């Protein structure tokens, strides 16, 4: 059952990314270009998304468990630590340079464009580098 939910959630997410045009990196960099011809679309996307995710978390707080599992799976981390800050800076750099982040690029693979595939491969390479970094304290997150 939970796998079906994952599938449905993914489907809705992919449809949302596509019809909102967040799948188009040029639309996103238009939003990020404050000094240029500013495109507010991404702001509307966040507004629409946060309305419903906000409602969902509001409802979730009132429950001790979700419907199909015995507990919620949230990170135990609470501190704003160095990896969070540095990771966010690096992510923001890459996002600003391309207009792509993980969700949209996966959705955009449906366009069969070579440069999109190159970005996706590089992104997974970046994840792999992180995964196999020596001397990384893998603090098991009770997630």
């Amino acid at each position: 059952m939970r796998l079906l939910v994952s599938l449905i959630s993914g489907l809705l997410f992919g449809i949302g990314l596509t019809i909102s045009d967040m799948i188009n990196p040029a639309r996103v960099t238009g939003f990020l270009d404050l000094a240029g011809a500013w495109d507010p679309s991404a702001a509307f996307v966040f507004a629409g998304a946060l309305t419903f995710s906000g409602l969902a978390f509001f409802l979730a707080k009132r429950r001790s468990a979700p419907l199909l599992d015995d507990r919620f799976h949230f990170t135990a981390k609470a501190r704003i630590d160095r990896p969070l800050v540095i990771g966010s800076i690096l992510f923001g750099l890459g996002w600003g340079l391309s207009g792509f982040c993980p969700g949209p690029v996966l959705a955009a693979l449906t366009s069969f464009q070579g440069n999109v595939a190159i970005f996706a491969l590089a992104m997974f390479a970046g994840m792999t580098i992180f995964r196999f970094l020596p001397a990384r304290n893998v603090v098991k997150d009770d997630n």
Partner: protein
Amino acid sequence: MHDLSPLWPLAGGALIGIAAGVLLLFNGRIAGISDLAAKATGLADEGFRLPGLVFVIGLIGGAFVASTLIRKPEIVLSGSTLQIVVAGLLVGFGARLGSGCTSGHGVCGMARLSRRSIAATMIFMGTAFVTVFVTRHVFGGM
């Protein structure tokens, strides 16, 4: 690139929020794509997780269905191959180091009022704004 009626971003955003809500209220999980993509490809610390792969398949499938039946998007990725590769590496590494991206921190974490996510979102948004400013208006259109 043509102007887009705000109805599309609002509707698409609503679907994204609903998708996150569904995953949360049924499975108790955060819809963070960087995390789910890592789990789908066995790159998470906990290795491969089937729900992650199923979600990613759904995402790609949903994008395909939407672009075929609802609205075919233009997908314009500019920049040299080098720039694209560097950007991809940064996004992949940065999202993992920072424990999330626009969906995990921006859509879910902020909705949860997580201090970490609010901080992360402000930092990556600010960095992205500056990056675009520098590449477009200082170095003239990268």
